[in-house]
């Protein structure tokens, strides 16, 4: 089994993630592969994504912690630094990775990225342009995705939602 010779560091990190999770973030390893994590991040309050629940996957490669974990959004999101396939443009996932960082710090950074999009370093050219030229409108679109997500997670009374759904899709 791949899980049998898991480095102590990964075990310790996992234990800590489960016992004292960071606010708004949950990460739990898959049962078949302890290097694969299912992650949920709540849209930060006072951000366009407030109310949304975003699913991500996180994988620790063989070289971890010398190499960065691989993280991807599974939930579609309207964000200048995240593309259609959910890939994230974040320096600490690439050249700024340091072995002294952890799963927790990576996920916190992603959460912070939701609060503060960086349209100057975009992954999705169109969204970034949108963000730069008309932030209010872009934020609205972001809110929209979060809202739709929230609907899916049944955070609103169903009568209300069906009405809004009708509006959005008409």
């Amino acid at each position, binding site marked *: 089994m791949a899980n049998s010779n898991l480095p*102590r*560091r990964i075990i310790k990190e996992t234990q800590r993630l489960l016992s004292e999770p960071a606010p708004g973030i949950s990460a739990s390893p898959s049962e078949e592969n302890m290097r694969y994590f299912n992650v949920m991040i709540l849209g930060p309050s006072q951000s366009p994504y407030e109310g949304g629940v975003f699913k991500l996957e996180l994988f620790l490669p063989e070289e971890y*912690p*010398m190499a960065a974990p691989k993280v991807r959004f599974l939930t579609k999101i309207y964000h200048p630094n995240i593309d259609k396939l959910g890939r994230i443009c974040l320096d*600490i996932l690439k050249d700024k990775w*340091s*072995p*002294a960082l952890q799963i927790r*710090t990576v996920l916190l950074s992603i959460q912070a990225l939701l609060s503060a999009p960086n349209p100057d370093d975009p992954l999705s050219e169109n969204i970034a342009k949108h963000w730069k030229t008309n932030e209010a409108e872009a934020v609205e679109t972001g809110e929209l995705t979060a809202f739709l997500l929230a609907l899916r997670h049944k955070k609103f009374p169903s009568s209300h939602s069906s009405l809004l759904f009708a509006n959005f899709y008409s």
Partner: protein
Amino acid sequence: MDSDEDLLDAYDGDSAEDYYYSGGDSDVDDYIAGGDEDEDDGGDCGYASDDDSTLRSEKVYTVLKVSDIQQRQEESISHVSSVLSISRVAACVLLCHYKWNVSQLHDEWFADEEKVRRTVGLLSRPVVQFPNAKELTCGICFESHPLDQIHSAVCGHPYCTTCWKGYITTSINDGPGCLLLRCPDPSCRASVGQDMILKLASDEDKEKYSRYFVRSYIEDKKKTKWCPAPGCENAVEFELGSNIYDVTCLCSHGFCWNCTEEAHRPVDCGTVSKWILKNSAESENMNWILANSKPCPKCKRPIEKNQGCMHMTCTPPCKFEFCWLCLGAWSDHGERTGGFYACNRYEAAKQEGLYDEAERRREMAKNSLERYTHYYERWASNQTSRQKAIADLHQMQTVHLEKLSDKLKEPESQLKFVIEAWQQIIECRRVLKWTYAYGYYLPEHEHAKKQLFEYLQGEAEAGLERLHQCAEKELLVFLGDDEPQADFKTFRPKLAGLTRVTRSYFENLVRALENGLSDVNTQPACSTSISSKNADGAGKGKGGKGKGSTSRSGRNAARDGDDDDHWNCDRCTYANPDSVSSCQMCHNER
């Protein structure tokens, strides 16, 4: 590499124990191959020392071997560490950051030492301290380790030996960024010094690291570049500001310092890259297809006609049958169109001008392709010839020279004129090769220039052929088993003379072409750079060996010999009647 060093060894050794009396330029400059010390065998054939050599011996570049680079790095490190009173390790960190620019480093350091220290990551004291701990937790693997297994940079962030090793290995394998390695803690800017890296890295990684270290010295600076020859580890430092970029590395590879393509005087870098692009480009294929094929009228695939009859059948699945001349369906051909093999539809259409456009384009493409092929073939055959000459020179140095010296009972140092001849051949082939690229890009409408160029090039070809022939064929006689020793006394001055004449001709040629053949436009400057020089050579009496010099001195004489009722054209020597003001032959102004 071995052979290359042989070549240079032979060079240096020879000039040291020079047999002939020297023309005064015995201070050997290894870095300009063939530039200096071959002017001295004048005794035999009556040449005075050539003033050209002084032009070429101005040293504008230096070849740096790995050991030279290391020595310079060493000097910089010592200098910085003593002037700034810091450790050598810190000096290395600073120099890597400042791209080995010592003066900029000094300026900024003395302006604001704190700022430099901060940006570079040279902390003066630890950020964290654990004075009484017996064990510390590694910030990477989260395990507790006894202090002897914990290391840290100046900042004090503790990591265990294993994690440090992993961190350093990863960073070295990531590339030259490892020279600016920092503490793993993301909020810490402390630099990780060379001492720590060399202590913890594996032997293989240490080697990589020191290679990156040496490379940084060359690649971070503007005036140094690596020699592009495969396998060569030397670098060339160039004095910026000179406009002659040809350099020759110790490995004997000659290249243009500006564009790092092979040496290409007299052609400029832009033309070279155009020419190289052209040689490799698909565009020539397209031209060929355009010139030699027609598209099938039905399926549009290009078809080359390789057999006689005009009745074409396209390959399956198309199978369309058509007439090659008019591209009409074959079924339309018959009695009413004037018979199968006399397609008068074509003639009729041509008269109406229907096919003119397509036909003209094909014709043009064919012409331009032929023109390109003409230049390319000659360019390529000089290239091949040069490769062969390089191989021959090598053979000469490793095998024949010794044999020859045994047979003729003469020391090898006395036979260096043979080597010089071969080196000259190699150089001339290179120049000649590039003159074809030059010719290709010479504007079509500048007839006078083109004529002069072709004349000069023709002379160069002829002169070089004579030298090549002499060095290759006539030398064979002496390598045979018979005893033609008497001939060798005449062979020596002949080959040496040809070498000299060819060299000065090519040097003049290069200069003239680099000036854009400006002689053509301005009459007073006419034949200053080329003719006067050779006329000079001819004036020295016995120098009339090269065709180049004799023919041009003749031309010079013609210029002076304007008679009463006619004048001789400066350019083509045609005797024009006094009544006309421009040459009747070449239209050159009087």
